[in-house]
């Protein structure tokens, strides 16, 4: 009887390890951003694009919808979403705040001149640290804000479908 116990333990250990590694293989090792909603907006300080004055999270008033859009002139998907932002700008219930991410000011101005300016205010993020305060990790990225809370996070460019979703949310 004594001899039979050891193989059983070995098999059990092998099975446990096999199970752990098998489960581990199924886990994705690509970062999936947390899209949890109802998160408070972070405190930050950023320069305004046009006059270099500093502004903080107080720019977001209560009982109003805001869309914070992180963009850059060097970002190709930002060009794709620009027409949708222009359409959204026509909505009276929402204000669009742009966060110009690690960009050359001259190029950013050309970009806006070429594609129109859908932003009510543009903030500057010269070293990318303001975007980190928002928990963003690239461009384009957008945050729908209401009552100082992030209602929706959009990773990647805004498309027709997302535009409709935003329009429904702000009604």
């Amino acid at each position, binding site marked *: 009887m004594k001899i039979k116990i050891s193989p059983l333990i070995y098999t059990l*250990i092998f099975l446990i390890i096999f199970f752990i590694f098998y489960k581990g293989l199924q886990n994705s090792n690509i970062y999936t951003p947390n899209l949890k909603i109802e998160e408070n907006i972070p405190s930050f300080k950023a320069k305004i694009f046009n006059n270099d004055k500093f502004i903080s999270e107080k720019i977001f008033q209560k009982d109003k919808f805001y869309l914070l859009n992180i963009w850059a002139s060097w970002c190709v998907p930002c060009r794709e979403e620009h027409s949708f932002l222009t359409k959204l700008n026509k909505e009276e219930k929402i204000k669009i705040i742009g966060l110009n991410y*690690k960009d050359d000011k001259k190029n950013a101005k050309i970009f806006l001149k070429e594609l129109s300016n859908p932003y009510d205010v543009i903030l500057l993020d010269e070293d*990318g*640290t303001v975007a980190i305060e928002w928990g963003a*990790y690239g461009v384009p990225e957008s945050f729908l804000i209401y009552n100082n809370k992030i209602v929706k996070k959009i990773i990647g460019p805004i498309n027709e479908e997302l535009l409709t979703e935003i329009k429904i949310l702000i009604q």
Partner: protein
Amino acid sequence: MRFFKFFIVIFFLVYSNLSNAQDSDLKNEITKNLRCLICQGQSVYDSDSEFANSLKILVEKKLNEGLKEKQIYEYLKSKYGEWILYDPEFNKNTYFLWLLPILMFLIGGAIILKLFIQKKN
């Protein structure tokens, strides 16, 4: 007196260089423990992506603000979740990861001990 002044100048020069070097060492150590979220298998320290470069600047800023290493990890964890840290904490998702080596060591030790006693008998 002249020698004394000279000594003070040298002392401050060496001291400021040393403290700068220590800050830079700590910054490197922290960024080595952070995962670059948009790269495959690279730390923030190793990566040259926009995201990693911004994080390097942010870590430096936070160190200058007087934040401790642990506080910086906590801050980044609140922004990006635990995935950004290379050193996983002990929780319900990671307890097996932490306990398995100890368990293996104990089981292995018990088997060796058992064989040893059997051989002796």
